[in-house]
């Protein structure tokens, strides 16, 4: 039975670049979710600009009420709307396009999309009308209008149903034999994200349904500590959906841009399984200095049961660059340790976004995250600007950057449009990543001096007692402010490119091999295909005579540098902790 024989004929088109079959309904679902994600990004980025210009104390733009209000709007649009709509698009893409399959119940998919949009609009309505000034976390007893909680519940139900449809699509693809063998690794990663999403969204139901009932007066109270536990099982675990989706995209972009190979399926897939098993314990990262939990609980949970999820990320941190290195070496770029990097397609925004995402996520987001998520070191970091400094490195520089890189390939592949403003697109990843890195460094350093997060006025002009931060803090906040302006410029450039391409872009269905066309990433017109005798070359590269660094010596050096930075940062923080008052 062939794939095209099952649904209505003509429902599929064959992709001009990859030869994959694309179902028209699935294509629509991908498009709708991706466009909505970009709209959310626009709202979130606009809020980001105003917020960063307020936290930059020398500018201090917004009044207090609007600072806190837009902080909630920013969190919702970036962490929930932008990322989850994009992930819905990723699920539809991985489940159908990469497996040559038809989508399960596409009409139900449109309905669920509608449900999520209605939920989003209710949330935004409440936030902008000042009926939900509870920030993103809405810790009770702070109380928002019931419609706000209802909006979140609708959004989550819609998302959960799409995840269910993704699993159904996997069953269809397997039953209709649309592919031979095991799922591609990228799909495996997307499946990991989907499984974590189920766990996450169920916690969302556990926390928001009682809170909704409390807000309408049907139950008397919500325990603030239980809420924090369950809310973060949603709030942090949902970031692990992002991690899994991001790593899947790393493998995808690696394959598309430089012909990155999978070194070993066993290692990469086992790492994804570690995510599924342990990553939901991360709720504890937010509760390390809370009164509700004892040391044993904190240690076991904050470490994902002995850092097994960290192990997984460190494994991907090796296999992704090593796969790229090997892919390049197999194609003849074998000179020296880093010839493969030097001769990589740095002008391809899909590639530069991939590398920037891997590097900043690993070096900055990963190292700071493990360090401040240590039970005792958290005393130095909890609720300071170090926290947003960390998670902007993971969620923005990591996930959002990877999503942007993927978009540069999805525009020609799915929307069948050339990437507009190609020259801007080629530098956009550098602008965005550079700006974000400044934001993250400014926040992290300022936070190290105790500057709180979520705070309108650290000059404390209206407070009973004076507080004067070390003057160097002003420098760090200026770094954050300037970086923020650059990063928002980068984000707006991305939005402009995406919108122009989708709605006014030049149609593209053919990808003539060997040509260089402005608006089409090089991976599509010059696909990084391997020679016919690639397996022989692979054997040679893996010859025992090449020593323990094997076929990927450049990556071995890079992870060595990473490891040293990790050790240094981690133990420096223990040293700083030892200077504090005695606390026990």
């Amino acid at each position: 039975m062939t794939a095209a024989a099952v649904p209505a004929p003509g429902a599929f088109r064959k992709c001009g670049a990859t030869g994959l079959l694309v179902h028209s309904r699935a294509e629509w679902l991908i498009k709708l979710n991706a466009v909505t994600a970009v709209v959310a990004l626009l709202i979130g980025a606009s809020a980001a600009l105003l917020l960063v210009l307020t936290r930059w104390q020398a500018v201090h733009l917004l009044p207090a009420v609007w600072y806190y209000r837009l902080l909630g709007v920013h969190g919702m649009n970036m962490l929930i709307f932008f990322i989850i709509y994009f992930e819905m698009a990723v699920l539809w893409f991985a489940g159908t396009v990469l497996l040559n399959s038809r989508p399960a119940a596409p009409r139900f998919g449109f309905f669920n999309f509608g449900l999520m949009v209605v939920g989003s609009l209710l949330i935004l309505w409440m936030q902008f009308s000042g009926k939900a000034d509870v920030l993103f976390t809405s810790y009770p007893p702070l109380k928002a209008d019931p419609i706000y909680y209802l909006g979140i519940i609708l959004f989550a139900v819609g998302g959960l149903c799409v995840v269910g449809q993704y699993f159904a699509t996997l069953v269809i693809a397997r039953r209709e034999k649309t592919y031979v063998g095991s799922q591609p690794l990228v799909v495996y990663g997307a499946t990991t994200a989907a499984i974590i999403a189920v766990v996450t969204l169920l916690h969302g139901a556990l926390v928001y349904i009682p809170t909704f009932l409390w807000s309408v007066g049907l139950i008397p109270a919500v325990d603030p500590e239980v809420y924090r536990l369950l809310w973060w099982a949603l709030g942090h675990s949902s970031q692990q959906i992002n991690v899994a989706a991001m790593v899947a995209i790393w493998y995808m972009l690696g394959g598309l841009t430089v012909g990155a190979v999978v070194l070993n399926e066993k290692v990469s897939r086992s790492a994804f399984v570690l995510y599924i098993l342990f990553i939901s314990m991360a709720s504890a990262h937010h509760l390390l200095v809370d009164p509700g939990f004892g040391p044993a609980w904190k240690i076991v949970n904050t470490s994902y049961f002995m850092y097994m999820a960290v192990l997984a990320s460190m494994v991907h941190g090796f296999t992704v660059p090593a796969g790229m290195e090997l892919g390049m070496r197999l194609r003849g770029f074998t000179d020296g340790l880093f010839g493969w990097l030097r001769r990589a397609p740095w002008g391809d925004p899909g590639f530069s976004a991939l590398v920037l995402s891997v590097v900043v996520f690993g070096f900055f987001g990963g190292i700071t995250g493990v360090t401040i998520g240590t039970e005792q070191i958290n005393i130095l970091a909890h609720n300071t600007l170090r926290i947003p400094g960390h998670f902007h490195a993971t969620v923005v520089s990591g996930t959002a950057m990877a999503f942007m890189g993927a978009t540069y390939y999805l525009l020609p592949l799915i929307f069948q449009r050339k990437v507009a403003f190609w020259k801007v697109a080629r530098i956009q990843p550098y602008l965005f990543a550079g700006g974000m890195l400044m934001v993250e460094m400014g926040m992290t350093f300022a936070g190290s001096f105790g500057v709180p997060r979520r705070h309108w006025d650290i000059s404390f002009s209206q407070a009973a007692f004076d507080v004067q931060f070390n003057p160097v803090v002003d420098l760090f906040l200026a770094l954050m402010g300037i970086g923020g302006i650059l990063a928002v410029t980068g984000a707006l450039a991305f939005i402009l490119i995406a919108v122009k391409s989708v709605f006014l872009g030049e149609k593209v269905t053919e990808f003539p091999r060997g040509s260089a066309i402005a608006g089409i990433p090089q991976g599509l017109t010059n696909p990084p295909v391997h020679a016919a005798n690639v397996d022989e070359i692979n054997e040679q590269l893996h010859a025992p005579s090449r020593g323990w660094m094997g076929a990927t010596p450049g990556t071995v050096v890079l992870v060595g540098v990473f490891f040293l930075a990790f050790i240094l940062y981690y133990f420096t923080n223990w040293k700083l902790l030892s200077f504090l008052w005695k606390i026990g």
Partner: protein
Amino acid sequence: MLTKVHTGLEPVPGVWWKPAHKAEKIWVAVAFVWCMILFAMMPLWHWKGGQNPSGVRRRVDPKAFYARTVAFANQYKVGEDKGLPIVAPPAGADVYVTALTFQWYPILKLERGKEYTLHLSSLDVNHGFSLFPINVNFQVVPGYDYGLRVTPTATGDFRILCNEFCGIGHHTMVGRVIVVDEAGRTVSDNAAAAVGQGGQP
């Protein structure tokens, strides 16, 4: 023996459970050992280290906790600043601070090198205890009493910032902790916090 060369976008035919390459194995082993070290550091610090967020933790009625704080403040009151009592408990005492929108009640006067059990809780919503400028941070949750054994190691005039959003006046919420030496002097070795603002302790 090597896996057939393929990218992450291609389905994998046959059995993919194959031995990893040497460099990959080494990195997984190094990462695993590092993870064990990361894990061991936390129990180790409980055993050998001086800063742990353990404390004594119990549920408490917010109003009862506030009443206990007021009684404590009246018992050891030695002065007043900005309408708040300055409270100097004896070494080893149970010390109470209640967070409420938007103040920390009362002002504490502690002695360097002496241990106290500092009880933190909230009368209303979540607050964040952040001791300025030494940057010690704890979550303050209504309904939960967080009793931390603290020993100030330096004298000075400290502030308590609120670093958990607690309402639109959140950024005005600042409290005060004074640490004196054995002779009762606030020798300021704490340059960033201004000494002697408001009433003298």
